[in-house]
């Protein structure tokens, strides 16, 4: 199963994401954000970092990248982590927007989130993780929620998963919770769940 990890100027979590993918059985590649040949991959990951230095607004400049503009036609799974989640929202691939944390602070700590009924310990590290959306999210959008809201996010949302389009955005960093030496391993659950979705898809085809 092939995973592409997209690198923008200012991305800084690509290597950790690469290592996590490799460890969990994906065949990862790092690709530049101007790459046009990415449709053979099963999974596209927009990793964390500060694409274009968060100028204008987080993810605002990255949404004009050739790869992002073509992502709507990609039929595999798309995962946006932290800055990647911000880019997906800015590009309109996921609903809502991420604004500055309620207390204006950069928050870096381990939090508890509930993913499909299971509590996971995952690290967060962000300044703009305060999720906002105007109306109710449609039923095909699953939510990943904080047990204790760290940043003012609406309805305690830490991440969302469009189960129809297979696009997931997460503020927590699952790639920082994979190896024993990272002291947390719950991030594996996220990658393994994505793998399962992709396996089912291959089976159907």
């Amino acid at each position, binding site marked *: 199963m092939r995973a592409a990890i997209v690198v923008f100027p200012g991305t800084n979590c690509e290597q950790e994401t690469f290592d996590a993918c490799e460890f969990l059985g994906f065949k990862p590649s790092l690709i530049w954000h101007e790459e046009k040949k990415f449709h053979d991959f099963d999974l596209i990951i927009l990793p964390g970092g500060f694409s274009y230095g968060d100028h*204008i*607004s987080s993810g*605002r400049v990255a949404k*004009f990248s050739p790869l992002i503009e073509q992502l709507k036609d990609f039929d595999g799974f798309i995962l946006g982590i932290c800055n990647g989640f911000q880019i997906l*929202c*800015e590009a309109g691939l996921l*609903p*809502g*927007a991420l*604004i*500055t*944390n*309620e*207390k*204006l602070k950069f928050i870096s700590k381990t939090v508890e989130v509930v993913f499909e009924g299971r509590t996971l310990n995952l690290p967060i590290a962000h300044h703009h993780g*305060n999720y*906002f*959306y*105007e109306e109710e999210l449609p039923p095909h959008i699953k939510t990943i929620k904080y047990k204790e809201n760290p940043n*003012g996010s609406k309805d305690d949302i830490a991440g969302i998963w469009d189960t129809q389009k297979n696009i997931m955005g997460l503020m927590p960093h699952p790639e920082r919770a994979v190896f024993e030496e990272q002291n947390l391993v719950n991030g594996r659950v996220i990658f393994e769940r994505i793998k399962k979705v992709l396996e089912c898809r291959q089976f159907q085809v």
Partner: protein
Amino acid sequence: MFLAEIIVKFKKNVKNPEEKTLETLISRLDFQEIETVSCSKLYNFKIKTKNKSEALKIANELAKKVLSNPIIEEFEVKICELQ
């Protein structure tokens, strides 16, 4: 040549954390006369077009496409001719 002034601000239903912090600071510093605070971003562009309506169209497009996110922000465009 025209000067476009684009102001981008949060919509009324979105709480701007920066405003709240500023309000707290203002009350702590005892500026009793100040009643409300609103923060926005101001962008200025010099635009070379034949007429004002063309410049307005370009500025609006730029504000919509690049400078704001319609989910959380709204914008205002003002154009004046440079002598």
